[in-house]
């Protein structure tokens, strides 16, 4: 049985779509020159994931194996087009900045991947949760990478926040260094590759630490049970 805990852990960490599955990297790298752009695309992708997962789970008993992929594509394309129209209408400035990458959510492999691997087999409730947390994990990576590159490239975080939150958000901009010329490489495409590499490396390091921690606990347990140092068990 899939517990809510596993879904959350899988989506945010263990099977993070950007850092572990390495899916949807094209938009991830292209739009993360600033934190707000990353957040915007992340939320759009998350909405697409939740909605497509819900629809796919809803009709999962009527799916035919032979045509399930075309049906997924139809569903995803419809959902993304609806999101694109809504963004164009209500978040027009952000839509103009993100440009082609909103319609391109259709081709984000995360969306079809989750529909096939998860939503077509599980309940609507669990599928929506999976969409939420897979999307959230993706969004967090976009936001982190955007903030990292923006801080190096422009010396600010959350510039152009008004594109997303309206004029009241202009004061959200955090200026880290005045008169900062910017480390240009960070906001150019190579900066995206390097930034993503750093994020993946950090995740690996943390994973390793956790694993080591678990081993120590295991060894201690073994010692407690057998009363001996038994490293050969490992």
């Amino acid at each position, binding site marked *: 049985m899939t517990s809510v805990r596993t879904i959350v852990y899988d989506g945010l960490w263990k099977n993070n779509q950007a850092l572990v599955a390495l899916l949807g990297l094209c938009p991830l790298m292209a739009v993360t020159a600033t934190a707000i752009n990353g957040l915007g695309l992340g939320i759009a992708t998350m909405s697409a994931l939740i909605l497509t997962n819900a629809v796919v789970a809803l009709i999962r008993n009527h799916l035919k194996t032979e045509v399930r992929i075309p049906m997924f594509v139809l569903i995803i394309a419809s959902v993304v087009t609806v999101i694109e129209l809504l963004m164009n209408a209500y978040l027009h400035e952000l839509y103009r900045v993100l440009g082609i990458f909103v319609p391109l959510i259709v081709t984000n492999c995360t969306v079809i991947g989750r529909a096939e691997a998860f939503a077509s087999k599980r309940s609507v409730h669990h599928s929506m949760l999976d969409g939420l947390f897979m999307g959230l994990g993706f969004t967090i990576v976009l936001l982190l990478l955007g903030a990292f590159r923006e801080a190096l490239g422009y010396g600010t975080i959350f510039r152009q926040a008004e594109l997303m939150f309206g004029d009241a958000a202009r004061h959200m901009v955090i200026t880290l260094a005045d008169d900062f010329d910017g480390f*240009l490489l960070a906001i150019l495409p190579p900066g995206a590759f390097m930034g993503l590499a750093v994020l993946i490396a950090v995740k690996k390091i943390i994973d390793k630490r956790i694993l080591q921690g678990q081993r120590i606990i295991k060894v201690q347990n073994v010692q407690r049970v057998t009363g001996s140092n038994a490293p050969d068990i490992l």
Partner: protein
Amino acid sequence: MANPARSILHVGFLLAFSALAGTGVMAITHYHTKDRIEENKRQVLIRGLTSVLPNVTYDNDLIADHITVKGPDKTGANKSLSIYRARYKGEPAAAVVTTVAPDGYSGPIKILVGIQYNGVISGVRVVEHRETPGLGDAIEAERSDWVFSFDRRSRQNTSPSQWQVKKDGGVFDQFTGATITPRAVVRAVHNSLQYFEMHREELFAVMENAGTADNQQKQHAAVSVEKQAETIKQVK
């Protein structure tokens, strides 16, 4: 034997139904958002147009009063370009020429050039480009003051040899590490100015719906444009 046929039918219906449902949802959303999207596009255009006509008094609806001309051949852009005309009490006041610099560092640069009737530039804005961030994007008004160096320039006070970047002996600054971008913009602006002067009379001669339009509507349009200009000033 009936089974495969039935299952093919089943699959066909399934696909048809999904297509129908998907298209239906899209159509409904499109129907409910299309006015707002049109309005958003209009606002963006109005904002662009008013920003290049800062000191020009006009009372017509710029968007309604535009003509499309075949682009000046010299720019190499043979696409048709829109020219928006500003009039005050029916008299020509200024025009906004939308032009494209085809020779930017990474692709074409879309530019709005506001020119007063006497041939003096009232404002220039770059509306779309793909120049290198941090180097070539200083042509944006938000990034640097460079684009304001066109203000009040004309063919009278700036000779053709001065319509160049400083490196080529002109009066316009180039950027550190990016000469191609400002060179392209300067050339495009100069070309539009030349085009405007050569065709000034014909550009304003063609009266489209704005001149003969019902007066009330005209005033309404003028008010909305003024309002728009005011809100932009406040934001700035």
